[in-house]
């Protein structure tokens, strides 16, 4: 996603660009530019506070989090549920990947730390101590 392709490419097309994707009939969502270096001047106030709360010097694990697109919808991959989480439909997306990534990180933290996250129920069901 750091190349010159349209920022909304995956929202306005089926995203089946490579031969491999055409063969299997699905877009391979992990392959955005996962190494896109975060632009720290674009941190949201929420993320700044999160980094401060955790006493980290940078985004830490969130450096690997980017806005992706699943089945034509903007979404973020949540490793804790091993699935994509769609962003609210009425959310207006910025016109560049850096700002979209920051929004993705913020939404993911809010989702993971929510008492309504699916892991909370799994924890109650399976925890051993």
């Amino acid at each position, binding site marked *: 996603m750091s190349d010159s392709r349209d920022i909304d490419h995956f929202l306005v097309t089926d995203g089946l660009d490579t031969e*491999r994707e055409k063969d*299997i009939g*699905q877009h*391979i969502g*992990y392959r955005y530019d*996962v*190494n896109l*270096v975060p632009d720290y001047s674009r941190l949201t106030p*929420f993320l700044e*506070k*999160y980094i401060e*709360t*955790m*006493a*980290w*010097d*940078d985004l*830490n*694990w969130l*450096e*690997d989090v980017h806005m992706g697109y*699943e*089945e034509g919808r903007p*979404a*973020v991959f*949540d*490793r804790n*549920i*091993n*699935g*994509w*989480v*769609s*962003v*609210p*439909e009425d*959310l207006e997306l910025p016109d560049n990947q850096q700002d979209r990534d920051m929004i993705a990180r913020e*939404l993911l*933290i*809010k*989702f*993971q*730390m*929510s*008492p*309504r*996250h*699916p892991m*909370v*129920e*799994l*924890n*109650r*069901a*399976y925890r*051993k101590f």
Partner: protein
Amino acid sequence: MAELDREGASFEMGMHTEQLSGRTQQVYFSPEEAENFTYPEAFDVDFNRRTEIDAAELDSGAVNRKLRELMEQGYGTIVVKNPGAKHSLGVGILNRLQLYFEGSLGYFGCGLIDGPNVRISGRVGWSCAENMMAGTVVIEKNAGSVFGAALRGGDLVCKGDVGSRTGIDMKGGTIIVGGRTGAFSGFMMQRGRMVILGDAGVNLGDSMYDGTIYVGGKIAGLGVDAVEAEMNALDAQWLERKLRLYGLEAPRGAANMTKIVAGKKLWNYDNLEPTEKKLVL
């Protein structure tokens, strides 16, 4: 019987009867979520509250239970004295915490952690920070084999040398080695970044699917499907910033490091991906 009861609870919640279809879970973010920074069941700790544990006479389980008790009491900075290279110390911490080990750890130290900042003044045995999710772990001396196995996220730093198979199966995050690393480092790496400031052993990046390995010294040999790529300005910028955080420097400058990536001839995992998700859920 306790195990059976737990399984019953999961059945009652419908977890074993849910019919899964499609590739996504159709989960949506709620814009009304509160601004929480820690997991719902995490302990509310204060970094300014500091305490110490003397681990000399305690076994690993007792040390880990003590850490949990102290977090429950609100201590945010804990110093463990005399860890004595005991195994599995500091594991499973899903909390913000400043944790200091004054000495060395045995195997599986700091595994399965999500959030804490850990500093270890001595050495660590094999499989340090295995499956780490987030946070920072810094080791001042050397580390054993399978350092950062299956790492998911966070920064794992060893300022000395490490053994073989560093970052095997890593799926994210950053591993930094101040010295040398052994054979098969980055084996089956799937994502994330590995930075080796010294020399790398044979079969570096063998069967890696994705991710990036940077090497400051000599490479004894590349593994299957690992290829050299061109360093760019973003690589150097990221490396300089990250190394500076831990007081480290690339021996010949960040821009002169060797970058290794996947040749992507072994990319077959996408076929399995939808099945994998259904199985896990």
